[in-house]
């Protein structure tokens, strides 16, 4: 079968499409014919060799996909051949087929396309966990989302609205801010033209926000620390801006603020029931139209380097997918 191989750590140009042996089925596992796979920012970090989860080289890249179950190993219950599913792994998703634990597969509702399904679990799942598990966000709270036009950021904006928050979306450039507003954000801040702290205080009447979801780090984090309400929870999702904050503990103390580290990738292993509940909730919201996954680019598997570079160059206006087996999968 075809698969995207990472033979050495480096930029997206290192990736190769190659023929590899089909993975073997095993007890508790299911084989899925992959329809679409989504590109995540974490894929880029992974092939650079900088992700917190490692596997010896060479490996098959890819973290998120949709597809159709074709075979189940012994002892599998609740999943059957023909089921349309979506899921995520740390590796192996940019391939014609994947063999994954059946417990990792989430059903795609009838009538929902496999394109949107491929873009659902990671972005929305990360946003939901940040707000529900880490920040314990309550309806009526103010939520500031950084990187709000990115995969995780846009998912967080929509989930925060579904949970009853008032959302301030922060992004770089008027086009990106508009995208976040189109996805439900109540207010937008273009940090390339506006002062984040001053605008947040103006929008909230001097009160500051209750929750911050920050996949960016660096300056975005530092500005946020100066426009939060007391008892704020600031969720650290990543450092897409390239700089890891060194958080002054005395500021957290005098302002009664929490710095909440968050790595969603660990939850399925550590808290499987919470993860299943989260994906079920997201699926309900998706069915109800509260979540609207937006796919802006679909490229063939052979163009994986270009697909990733759309994220590297920050040109993607929505989720970028690889078409692997397509709707016919």
């Amino acid at each position, binding site marked *: 079968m075809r698969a995207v191989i990472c033979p050495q750590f480096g930029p997206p140009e290192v990736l190769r499409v190659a023929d590899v042996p089909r993975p073997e089925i095993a007890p508790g596992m299911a084989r899925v014919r992959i329809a679409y796979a989504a590109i995540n920012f974490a894929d880029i970090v992974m092939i650079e060799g900088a992700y917190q989860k490692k596997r010896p080289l060479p490996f098959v890249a890819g973290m998120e996909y949709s597809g159709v179950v074709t075979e189940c190993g012994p002892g599998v219950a609740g999943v059957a051949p023909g089921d349309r599913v979506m899921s995520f792994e740390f590796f192996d998703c940019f391939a014609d087929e994947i063999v994954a634990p059946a417990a990792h597969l989430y059903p795609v509702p009838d009538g929902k396309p496999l394109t949107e399904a491929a873009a659902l679990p990671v972005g929305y799942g990360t946003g939901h966990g940040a707000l529900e598990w880490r920040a314990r966000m309550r309806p009526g709270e103010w939520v500031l989302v950084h990187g709000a036009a990115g995969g995780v950021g846009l998912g967080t904006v929509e989930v925060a609205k579904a949970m009853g928050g008032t959302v301030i979306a922060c992004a770089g450039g008027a086009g990106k801010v508009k995208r976040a507003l189109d996805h439900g954000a109540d207010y937008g801040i273009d940090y390339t033209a506006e002062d984040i702290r001053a605008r947040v205080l103006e929008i909230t009447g001097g009160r500051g926000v209750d929750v911050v979801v920050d996949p960016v780090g660096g300056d975005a984090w530092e500005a946020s620390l100066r426009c939060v309400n007391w008892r704020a929870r600031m969720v650290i999702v990543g450092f897409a801006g390239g700089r890891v904050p060194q958080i002054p503990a005395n500021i*957290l103390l005098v302002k009664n603020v929490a710095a909440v580290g968050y790595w969603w990738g660990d939850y399925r292993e550590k808290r499987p029931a919470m993860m299943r509940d989260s994906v079920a909730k997201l699926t309900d919201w998706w069915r109800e139209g509260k979540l609207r996954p937006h796919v802006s680019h679909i490229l063939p598997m052979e163009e994986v380097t270009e697909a990733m570079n759309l994220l590297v160059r920050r040109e993607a206006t929505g989720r970028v997918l690889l078409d692997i087996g397509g709707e016919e999968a």
Partner: protein
Amino acid sequence: MRALLCRQWGPPESLTVEEIDPAPMGAGEVRIAVHAAGLNFADTLMIAGEYQRKPPFPFSPGLEAAGVVTEVGAGVTRLKPGDRAIALVDSGAFRAELVAVERDVIPMPAEMDFVTGAGFGAAYCTAHGALDWLGRLAPGEVLLVHGAAGGVGLGAVEVGKAMGATVIATASSPEKLALAQAHGADHPINYRTEDFRARVLEITDGRGADVVFDPVGGDVFLTSLRCVAWDARLVIIGFASGTRQKIPANILLVKNIAAYGFAWTQYRREAPEMVYDSMERLFGWWREGKLAPHISEVFDLADAATAMRRLTGRQATGRIVLTTGLD
């Protein structure tokens, strides 16, 4: 009335005891004859001008007092003259008579003496708020308490046990650790002579602590990040070490760790109902014998400087209380 006064920022020796006129009282306020007042580390910062709140001169330091209500202003409903009460205030407790807003005054159990009451509120409320509101400490979890023989630390040991946790206590001497154990700590660690990270990992079979209560700060906090469990909650109470650490955000991220800053006094001002609930719970545990307030020394107001030096020299264990001469 006798009052301890701070007339300029300075060391404890610059405080004076003076005779001053009674303070005026207005609507919504309560006048209390102060029998005893609890000394806190924050008092030593406040008189030096190093605390976030800086009252105008001259002022009396002191964040908590116990005594008897002598007068109530118009509109006061929760208290009446003759009530025994604890006052938890922004400053002003170290004087024979205190005027506080009703919100800051809490009726005290009839069977509690004033010295105990004076040292009860701030330490136990800080411990309870940190462990319950922020740390969400669950029965069976492992709690690591630093500075475990100090005022708030010893309170956290007792509250942690009352909440059903296994408590690991760190302190700087065998005497302090013996005190923490006498108040319920399950595992003592002397951080002067032992590698506390290695010991915590050993005690928890490599898993690490679930909740950390840290009034010490600096390297103690940063080392704690390396002996906590997945999804740990670390509560920042203060910086008795004198070092205000910077926390690397990437360490928090990879282990799903949360660092909570906690300044309890803001809850008292902005969410007093949470503090009343906390006090009810704490009084209940005290009646059941689960909390045994340790008052290590009692000084007269005139000896406040000596008392404060016990805290700044990190010599004190448990609580130190000042008395005004009323019995």
